[in-house]
């Protein structure tokens, strides 16, 4: 029996997971840029937190991640905290519902998380940047679609789609690979049910 996935009484073990998740996000992002990979890979920690601790911990990791980035590197991050929060939430709900039990299911989770990012980020991009993402290839597509159709929402949606879905899909698959390798007693730690069985 697991505790309810919406349990707000966060255990200390799951809270301690949050700073580590933010750290993993940062390490992933740094490595991706050091290795010059054409992806961000900056949400691996959030995804792991969702898989291990459920939607609330996942959402908190996402939101706190962007607050910290905002305070230490790039103030724009604050705005996209909402996207991170929803990504953690969606991954956590799917994980809780048993969607991280195989590679094929993990692909679905990756696409779902990517689409979540697109749906939440597009309005933010439009109200903040007039529709762009700041990614070279995505923005080139944006310009092309704008030139052809003049449909801001459509252009912005496509811009975000080509940038986010592949990135989040790979992010979730990497997280799943790591998750599979974690020892069982560690996974157990985050889903304790607050019940002590009696041996008397």
């Amino acid at each position, binding site marked *: 029996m697991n505790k309810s996935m919406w349990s707000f009484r966060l255990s200390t073990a799951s809270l301690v997971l949050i700073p580590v998740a933010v750290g993993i996000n940062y390490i992933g992002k740094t490595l991706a840029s050091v290795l010059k990979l054409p992806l961000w890979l900056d949400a691996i920690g959030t995804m792991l937190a969702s898989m291990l601790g459920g939607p609330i911990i996942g959402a908190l990791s996402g939101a706190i991640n962007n607050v910290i980035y905002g305070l*230490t590197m790039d*103030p724009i991050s604050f705005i996209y905290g909402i996207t991170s929060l929803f990504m953690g939430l969606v991954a956590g709900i799917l994980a809780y519902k048993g969607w991280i039990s195989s590679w094929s299911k993990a692909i679905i989770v990756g696409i779902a998380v990517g689409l979540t990012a697109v749906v939440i980020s597009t309005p933010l991009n439009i109200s903040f940047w007039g529709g762009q993402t700041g990614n070279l290839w995505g923005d080139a597509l944006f310009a092309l679609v704008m030139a052809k159709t003049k449909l801001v929402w459509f252009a912005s949606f496509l811009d975000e789609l080509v940038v986010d879905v592949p990135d989040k899909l790979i992010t979730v698959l990497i997280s799943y690979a790591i998750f599979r390798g974690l020892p069982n007693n560690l996974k157990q730690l985050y889903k304790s049910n607050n019940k002590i069985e009696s041996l008397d």
Partner: protein
Amino acid sequence: MKALTLYEDRNTFIHHVHPINKLIYIFIIIVVPLILPLFPVLIAGIIMNTVLLLIANVFKKSLPIFGFVLLILLTVLIIQGLFHAENATPLFHLGPLLFYKEGFFYALQITLRVLNIVAAFMILVLTTKPSDLVETLVRKGLSPKIGYVLQSVFQIIPQMLSTMETISDAQRSRGMETEGNLFVRIKAFLPLLGPVVLNSLIQTRERAMALEVRGFSSLRHKTFLNEVKNYRYTTFIQFTLWLVLLAAIIWRVVL
């Protein structure tokens, strides 16, 4: 060890303003131009921010961040100037490209708005020690547990980075390739990331226990080692800020 922060330790008036007042200031800077969507309002905001950054002696420190934002804004200016949906009135030619007035001004508005918000955040971030900000928020009612999480990130990230450097040195000395074609670089990602991640996740168990036995989940009323800092003119500044908001609302309603 250097904690992760943009904070600049100076002794200026701005550094002694209550962190909550800086947060209210950001709120006002974002909200007032929404109530009064006029160019002069945005420009006034930017001038105000610049003056405050200069007083705080951190203007130079803020430039790299603005540089990064401006780069993105430049592409916004180009794309909107060329392709904005309402483009009708030609403004100027740049080689074969025709820029339109509607798109250009739309992009200009976006640029000013973004610069305004980023500058307001920079005032907070560059002049407030993160630990002071978090401690203030905890005193004002933020859960001490969330406070702990925020505080610890600032130190855990540099810790993990140094662990990663140790590991990547070790992997490289064992002959792992981290340069070359895309496939080689992708193949290097997991072996570099995996050990740090595994190690830090496993450490969470003992850290959680260590926190628990030091009363982390105690129901007693938490106290603070540090005394409340002596912030300057807190009530006056707060009053003035709310007055600005009120004035903006009245202006909007009356005009």
